[in-house]
C-alpha cells in the first residue's frame, strides 16, 4: 500500500530568527520548510518504507557480479561499539585501537590477495580503481614514463573500469573477448604498446571463467612496461585457491561488500581497499598505518602480511600513521569508510582461512548447481561463482520483472553483452539447496511463459512495472518538483 511522502504528512515552515543566534539578518536564511513529525509518526513511516524494500533478509538475491550475501549482524554490533566512534583528527596516541585494527586489516587483505601493501582509504570499489589508476600514473611518471596514456579494458568489464580510466585522464582501449569468452591474446598483443599504462582485468571474468592464460597475459603486459590491475569484483570465487598477486597482478582492489559480507545498504557505504606489489607501495595514498617499532622506508610492511593473528586479544603493539614516500596524497577526506572496515575485519576474523576457503567453494558449488537446474542455455563454461545464461528469444529485462512475481530477486540482466539477453546469475555461498531449487523453479516457470505475460510483469509487487522513460524525460527529483506540477 502507498506510503505518503513525509511532506504529504506535514509541512512546517519555521521563520528563522537571526536575533536568537545573535547574528545580523543578512547572514541567515529567512525560513526553513520541512516536515515536522513526531517520533511515532516517523517510526511508522520508515518501518513501512523498509517493508517495501527487498533485502537479503527477504529472499535470494542472485545478482551476478554484485555478490549479495548474508550480512552477519554481529558485525553491526561491533561497529556500534563506543570505541569505534572517534574523530578523524584525534592524536595517534589516543586511537591505538583504531590504528591496530586498520593495520591488522591491511595485513589480512595483503595475505588474502597475495599483495605486499594495502591502503584502506578508498570508500568504494570504483574509488579503489581510481587509486589503482592514480598509483599507476604516479609510478610511470616517477619512472619518466609519463607519456603512457592508454588503459586497456576488456569489452565485458564493469562500467566503472572505463569511467575510472577516463577520470584518470587515460584513453580507454577496449579489448574484445575470444570465442571462449576469455581475453583474446592476439587482440591483446595488438592493443599493447609503449603507450600502455595498464590493463584492467577481472579473474574469474564477468562470465565466471578463469582466465587460463593469466601468466602469459601478465608477461605480455609487463613486457611493454605496463601494469596489470585486478578488479576484485569476483574475488569471492577464489579465496584460498588463487591469489591475484601470484597470478602476476601489480595492483588490485577488494570489494569488501562482495567478498567480506559488509552490507550494501541499498547502494553503500562500501570500501575498496587497494593492494599493491612492493614497487608500487611508495605511491599509495596517505596516510597508511604501520607498526611504530618496525617502520620501513618505502612503507612496505612485510610485517603486516606476516604478523601473527592473536586470537582473543589486541596485539598491544604501538601503531602510527605515515605517508608513503611518493604518495599520491588523499583520495578521500580521511581514511575512507571506517565503520565498514570494522565490519570487514570482524568478518575475516570470524571466518579465518578455513571459512574463507569454504565460502568460495560453496559459492562455486551453488552457481554450478543452480546452473545445472535451469532451462535457460548457459553458453560459456566452466564457470565458477557465477554464470551468464541467455534468455534466448525472451527479453532478459522482462524475464527479470516476471521473476519478481515469483517472490525472488532476479539476476543482473543484459550484461555482459557477449551473451545475448544475458541473465547474469550469482547465488553466492549463503543460499541453501532448497532456496536454489526455489530460484530454479522461478527461472523455469518464466522460461515457459509467453511474451505478453512477462511484458505485463510484475503484478505482485509493491509497485507494478515502472515507467522509466517518462521518469527520465520529465525528471521530478524532489517533492518540491511534484508540488510545482
Amino acid at each position, binding site marked *: 500500500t*502507498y506510503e505518503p511522502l513525509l511532506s504529504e504528512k506535514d509541512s512546517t515552515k519555521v521563520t528563522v530568527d537571526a536575533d536568537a*543566534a*545573535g547574528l545580523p539578518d543578512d547572514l541567515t*536564511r529567512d525560513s526553513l520548510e*520541512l516536515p515536522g513529525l513526531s517520533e511515532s509518526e516517523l517510526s511508522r513511516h520508515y*518501518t513501512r*518504507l*523498509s517493508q517495501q*524494500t527487498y533485502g537479503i533478509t527477504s529472499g535470494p538475491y542472485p545478482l551476478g557480479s554484485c555478490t549479495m550475501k548474508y550480512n*552477519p549482524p554481529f558485525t553491526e*554490533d561491533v561497529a556500534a561499539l563506543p*570505541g*569505534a*566512534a572517534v*574523530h578523524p*583528527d*584525534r*592524536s595517534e596516541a589516543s586511537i*591505538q585501537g583504531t590504528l591496530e*585494527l586498520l593495520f591488522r586489516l591491511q595485513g*589480512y587483505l595483503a595475505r588474502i590477495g*597475495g599483495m605486499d601493501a594495502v591502503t584502506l582509504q578508498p570508500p568504494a570499489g570504483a574509488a579503489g580503481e581510481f587509486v589503482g589508476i592514480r598509483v599507476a600514473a604516479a609510478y610511470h611518471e616517477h619512472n619518466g614514463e609519463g607519456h603512457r596514456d592508454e588503459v586497456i579494458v576488456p569489452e565485458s568489464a*564493469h*562500467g566503472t573500469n*572505463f569511467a575510472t580510466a577516463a577520470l584518470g585522464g587515460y584513453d*580507454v582501449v577496449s579489448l574484445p573477448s575470444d570465442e571462449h569468452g576469455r581475453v583474446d591474446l592476439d587482440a591483446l598483443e595488438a592493443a599493447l604498446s609503449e603507450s600502455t599504462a595498464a590493463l584492467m582485468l577481472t579473474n574469474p571474468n564477468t562470465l565466471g*571463467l*578463469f582466465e587460463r592464460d593469466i601468466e602469459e597475459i601478465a608477461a605480455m603486459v609487463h613486457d611493454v612496461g605496463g601494469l596489470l590491475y585486478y578488479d576484485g569484483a569476483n574475488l569471492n570465487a577464489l579465496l*584460498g*585457491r*588463487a591469489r591475484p598477486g*601470484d597470478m602476476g597482478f601489480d595492483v588490485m582492489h577488494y570489494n569488501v561488500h562482495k567478498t567480506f559480507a559488509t552490507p*550494501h*545498504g541499498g547502494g*553503500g557505504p562500501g570500501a575498496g581497499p587497494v593492494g599493491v606489489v612492493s614497487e608500487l607501495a611508495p605511491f599509495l595514498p596517505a596516510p597508511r598505518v604501520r607498526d611504530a617499532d618496525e617502520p620501513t622506508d618505502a612503507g612496505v610492511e612485510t610485517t603486516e602480511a*606476516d604478523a601473527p593473528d592473536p*586470537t*582473543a586479544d589486541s596485539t598491544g603493539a604501538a601503531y602510527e600513521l605515515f605517508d608513503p614516500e611518493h604518495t599520491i596524497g*588523499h583520495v*578521500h*577526506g*580521511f581514511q*575512507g569508510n571506517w565503520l565498514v572496515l*570494522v565490519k570487514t575485519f*570482524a568478518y575475516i*576474523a*570470524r571466518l579465518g*582461512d*578455513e571459512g574463507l576457503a569454504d565460502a568460495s567453494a560453496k559459492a562455486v*558449488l551453488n552457481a*554450478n548447481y543452480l546452473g545445472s537446474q535451469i532451462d535457460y542455455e548457459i553458453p560459456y563454461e566452466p564457470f565458477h561463482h557465477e554464470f551468464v545464461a541467455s534468455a534466448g528469444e525472451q527479453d532478459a529485462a522482462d524475464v527479470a520483472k516476471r521473476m*519478481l512475481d515469483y517472490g525472488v530477486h532476479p539476476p543482473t540482466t543484459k550484461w555482459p553483452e557477449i551473451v545475448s539477453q544475458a541473465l547474469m546469475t550469482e547465488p553466492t555461498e549463503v*543460499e*541453501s*539447496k532448497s532456496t536454489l531449487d526455489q530460484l530454479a523453479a522461478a527461472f523455469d516457470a518464466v522460461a515457459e511463459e509467453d511474451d505478453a505475460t512477462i511484458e505485463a510483469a510484475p503484478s505482485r509487487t509493491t509497485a507494478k512495472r515502472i515507467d522509466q522513460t*517518462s*521518469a527520465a524525460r520529465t*525528471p*521530478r*527529483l524532489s517533492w518540491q518538483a511534484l508540488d510545482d506540477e
Partner: protein
Amino acid sequence: MDGSRTTGSPYAPHTDTETAAMLDAVGVDSEEALFDIPEPVQFDGDFGIDARSEREARQLVESILERNDDLVELLGRGHYGYYIPSLVDHLSDRSEFLTSYTQYQPEVSQGFLQALFEYQSMLVELTGLEVANCSMYDAATALGEAATLADRVRGVSGSVVLVPEILDENKRSTLGNYVAGTDLVVETYAMDDGAADVDSIADRLDEDVVMLYAENPTVRGTIEPGLSALGDLATESDTLFVLGSDPVALSLLERPADVGADVVIGDASVLGLPTAYGMGLGLFATREDYLRQVPGRLVGASEDGDDRRAYTLTLQTREQHIRRERATSNICTNQAWVALRTAIHAATLGPDGLVDLATRDVTRARELADRVDALPGVTAPVHDRHHVREFVASVDGSASGIATDLEDHGYAVHALGADELQICVAGATDDELDGFVDALSEVIR
C-alpha cells in the same frame, strides 16, 4: 548426525548430504573439481588467519577498540559528534534497508527509493537548488566531482579552480587527485581575518577561472559575510560558484541559492553519523541547468502500471554502467544508507529542531569563546567574525603541548600551527564544556 553441517563458512548452510546431492547433480566428485585454475597459479598456502566463534570475533574487536582512549572530543573541522536519537539507529538498522542492493529493480525497492527521494528533497529545501543527488562519498570527493563538473560545463575556457588558502589539506589533496586527469589546476585565494578576501578574489577572477569555491562556515568556524559578493563576481566572470556547507549550517545560514551558488557540496553526515574516523556522506546539489551533468545517482518520481506514483533511479545514462568512459563520474557504490540515516535524523529534528540546533551552535560557540578568552594567556576568537560550532583561540605557549596536556585531562582539541587551538562545541554537553574550561585553565597555568 545425519544432517550435520560441514565445517567452514558459518554462513554457508550446506549439510554434507546436500553438498553431496548438489555435486551429484552437477556431475563432479568434489568442490575442487569445479575450479578451473592452472596449476602454476594455484595457491596452496594459508593466510594464517584463525577462525573464531562469533563471540571470539566480537571479543577480538572489543579488545582492540578498547585501546582507543575515551576522550571528550571538542574537535570539528567538518566532523561533529551530535547526539543521534536512538530512533535513527533502530530504523536504519532494519535489515531490509541495510541488506538491500542498489535499486535496479524499483518495483521491489520502493521504500528505499522513497527515502532517498525524501533525502534529495530535504537538500533541495536546505540549499534552494533544484537538484540534489543521493550521495557522494564525502565532502572532499564531492569537491573533486564539482571540479570535474565545472570542467565539463565550463562557460569560460580557462583551467583554474580557485579555493581558499585555508582549505583543509586532505580536501585539497583529494581535489588534486580528481583533477589530475584533467587540464585543471588548483590555486588559492587569500583570506581576510578568517573570511574570503573579496577584493583579491575580484582581482583574480578572469576567464581563466572555471570554478570558485568558498565554504560557509569556513574550516575555522567563521561565517562568511561576503557570499553574495562572491556569487555576483562569479556570475560576472561566468565562473561556476561552488559552496561548501552542511545540513546543520544550512538550516540557519544564508540559503545558497540566494547568494548565487551553482553547486553546493559538503558533508551531510554531520547528521546521521557519529564521529566515525572521517566516514562521511558527500552532499551534492546543483542548479537544474546542470542536471544532465550531475555525478552520482538520482531518484525520480514516475508512475507504475497502475498509474500510481512510484520512484525509480533515473537519468542513468549519465552513469558509468551505461555510459562507461563518457560517464559524469566513475562512482557506483555510494553512501546511500548514510543518506537514509541523515534523512531520518533530520526528520526527527524537524525544521524547529534544525534551526534550534544551528542557533545553539552559534550561541554556545560565542559563549565558550568568551569564557576561554577570559582565561589568562588565551585570546578567543582569533577572528573578529561570527562563528558557528567552533572558533580558533590563540594561546601563549605551545599549542601542541597544551593539546597534549588537555588529552591527559580527557579533552581533545585541534592544535593549529604553533600557537592556535581550534575548539568546537557541537555535540558537547554543558557539563563537558564546563569541564573543558576547568581543564584548560589548569593546563595553561
